[in-house]
């Protein structure tokens, strides 16, 4: 029973972090049909930048902000230089291009920060007491932060002037252009926002397991799963799916090793693709 409570907490917390990662990915896919293979690596780079800023300033919050800003700028640069020329071409080319970017980022991180694991220390110490169980406070804080950031994103999309631009462009790019919305800029901005979300997730996740060059791939794969299960381009769906998948994996980890628990997500993914390709939580369109 205790195990179940702990695993539920793990699932919820991990789910919130994954939701942040997946939301960036689904936003990018929804608006410009790009499957960003490098998304997890942007997360990883953000975590490293965050660790560095933390080392320099001692402030977790500055690390979070710094990582988001730096990686947002990097994301914008990447989109303009390598992805914009590929607009209109076979979608395969953008997957390949982001795959190439992923390789370069991974090795760059290795070169810049070396192979040893970096630490991001927890923003808050101590444990939280639930009945007779103890659960680290910082994990709860992380989940809350993720929730706040996601809420901020949602509000921005719903009410901001630029949020309307983004939503209009996602629905009908041609008509948005006809209304004078500068679509190429919107694309760059969305990629930057997605990258920033990934980077922030990296810093949030940092205290959980340390920062390594290979941490990105796992997130990329899980984020893919979530985006498909939640419905491509569906922000709310990917948040629900993130929590769902993370909970499933956490419960599975009670029975099998964590490495094997990931198979559960894969099975859900395959079942979704076969039977509800538009998304598990999305009604199948008539």
């Amino acid at each position, binding site marked *: 029973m205790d195990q179940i409570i702990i695993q539920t907490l793990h699932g919820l917390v991990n789910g919130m972090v994954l939701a942040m990662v997946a939301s960036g990915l689904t936003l990018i896919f929804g608006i410009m049909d790009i499957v960003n293979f490098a998304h997890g690596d942007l997360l990883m780079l953000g975590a490293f930048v965050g660790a560095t800023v933390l080392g320099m300033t001692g402030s977790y919050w500055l690390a979070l902000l710094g990582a988001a800003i730096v990686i947002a700028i990097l994301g914008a640069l990447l989109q303009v230089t390598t992805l914009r020329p590929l607009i209109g071409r076979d979608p395969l080319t953008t997957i390949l291009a982001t795959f190439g970017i992923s390789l370069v980022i991974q090795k760059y991180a290795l070169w810049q920060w070396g192979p040893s694991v970096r630490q991001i220390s927890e923003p808050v110490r101590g444990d939280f007491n639930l009945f007779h169980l103890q659960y680290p406070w910082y994990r709860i804080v992380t989940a809350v932060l993720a929730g706040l950031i996601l809420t901020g994103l949602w509000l921005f999309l719903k009410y901001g002037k630029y949020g309307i631009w983004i939503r*209009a462009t996602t629905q009908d790019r041609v008509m948005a252009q*006809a*209304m004078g919305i500068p679509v190429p800029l919107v694309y760059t901005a969305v990629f930057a926002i997605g990258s920033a979300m990934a980077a922030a997730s990296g810093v949030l996740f940092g205290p959980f397991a340390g920062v390594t060059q290979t941490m990105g791939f796992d997130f990329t794969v899980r984020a893919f799963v979530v985006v498909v299960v939640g419905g491509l381009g569906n922000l709310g769906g990917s948040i629900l799916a993130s929590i769902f998948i993370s909970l499933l994996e956490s419960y599975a980890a009670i029975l099998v090793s964590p490495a094997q628990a990931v198979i559960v997500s894969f099975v859900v993914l395959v079942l979704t693709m076969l039977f509800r390709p538009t998304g598990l939580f999305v009604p199948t369109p008539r």
Partner: protein
Amino acid sequence: MLILENVDAHYGKSHVLHGVSIEVRAGEVVGLLGRNGVGKTTTLKAIMGMARRTGGRITFEGRDLEGVPPHGLAGLGIAWVPEERRIFRLLTVLENLRTGLDRPGVTPAHRDALLDKVYAYFPILKERRNQAGGTLSGGEQQMLAIARAMMLEPKIILLDEPTEGLMPRMVAQIQEIVHALHRDGVAILLVEQNVPLTLDAAGRVYIMEKGTVRHHASAAELRADQRVIHEYLGV
């Protein structure tokens, strides 16, 4: 103001427009008639930079539209109301309007004034302003599409078959809107299948057939002698 000179256009491999020449002067309502598939919509798309122009020139107020990016046309004063309306279904009515309203240089007071004006023309839109665009009826969506274009305060509106599929009461409403816009000094290039409405609203009319302009006359002339209309449109 808007001049198409000898425009050729391609859609993929098919050569759709052959030497189309059309002119719309400031404040004019010009009609573009023709049967289905003759290239009327393609002509509008060529202006909007959506069909591949392979010959001729399109200028607006003297400026060649060749190098203008698709999102730059609204800023020049060209608004487009497409045949399928293409309102943003998941955005509310107000958000749809805001896509045209949120432009640089528009003060909040001006924005409110524009909204009031459009709500005066289309009271139903005010009523439904927080409803998602996709939940509106066909006629309401058409009104929204026109209202949205008006938000750009354009010099010319490219209106593509606004009365298609609408009930007679709605058609009359559209007719009134076109008149009102004309009174406001907005030029309109009206593509239509509805001949009486076009002849009533437009000053001059072009008739297209098989991708080119076959006939050009004033609406008055065409009203007087219905044979031309019969010949090209079979009505």
